């Protein structure tokens, strides 16, 4: 039996990351700072992308991606619910790979960020939604390296960063890639502090 079959059998909850505290914080930042053509990378259930459609007044159109086919279908379903407000264009993709230069005014990303033992990695879709590799930054690093390319002039990146991931390491990379950064929202929980950083090109 494959992971996909198992996921189908147990229901979508085991295959698709459902909205949690981090999603709420990212949505808050999106409503506050999102504008123009909007992309959510790794949308999971599509909840934040749906919020971008319904609650972010300055957002004109919404694209959402995920590597997980179950997540893509869930996001497309949420897009249908808000079709009259413009809906969500869902693309199955790895990070920013299939997007042209200067394509977006806003890019939001709640990355898989938990540092994980490599032995236990990529065993199913949920693991993949959570695990950021040994450092916790295995997806954050290539995202930060490439996101400037797809950002239109005046664009902003909204990146969720957990203290578990090594906040200073993320900030250092962001600076090395030539971004200004500020904290849009921050919240502390028993085991981690979550921040959403707004990155803009200097």
């Amino acid at each position, binding site marked *: 039996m494959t992971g996909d079959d198992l996921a189908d059998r147990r229901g979508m909850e085991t295959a698709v990351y459902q909205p949690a505290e981090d999603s709420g914080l990212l949505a808050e930042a999106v409503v506050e700072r999102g504008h123009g*053509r909007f992309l959510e990378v790794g949308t999971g259930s599509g909840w934040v992308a749906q919020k971008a459609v319904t609650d972010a007044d300055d957002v004109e159109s919404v*694209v959402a991606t995920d*590597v997980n086919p179950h997540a*893509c*279908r869930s996001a*497309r379903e949420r897009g249908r619910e808000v079709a009259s407000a413009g809906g969500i*264009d*869902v*693309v*199955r*993709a*790895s990070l920013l*790979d*299939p*997007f*042209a*230069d200067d*394509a*977006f005014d806003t890019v939001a990303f709640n990355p898989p960020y938990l540092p994980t033992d490599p032995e236990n990695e990529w065993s199913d879709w949920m693991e993949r939604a959570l695990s950021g590799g040994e450092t916790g930054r295995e997806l954050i690093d290539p995202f930060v390296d490439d996101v400037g390319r797809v950002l239109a002039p005046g664009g902003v990146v909204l990146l969720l960063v957990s203290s578990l991931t090594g906040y200073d390491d993320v900030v250092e990379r962001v600076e090395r890639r030539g971004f200004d950064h500020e904290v849009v929202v921050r919240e502390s929980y028993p085991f981690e502090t979550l921040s959403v950083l707004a990155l803009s090109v200097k």
Partner: protein
Amino acid sequence: MKESLMDILCDPLDKSDLELEVDERDGDEILEGRLVGTVTGEVYPIEDGIPNLLPPDMRDD
């Protein structure tokens, strides 16, 4: 996917242009078809409105 998405999509392998081939549409929404790399010749399917633009080595997992 909406046809207007073509403005911002590119081939994930080399960022070159894609060509859209439509089998089924609903207004400006493409439901079934494929995107073909104009340089790489790679074929990316569109199924139930969702284009699969994963690079070939990441597909079918």
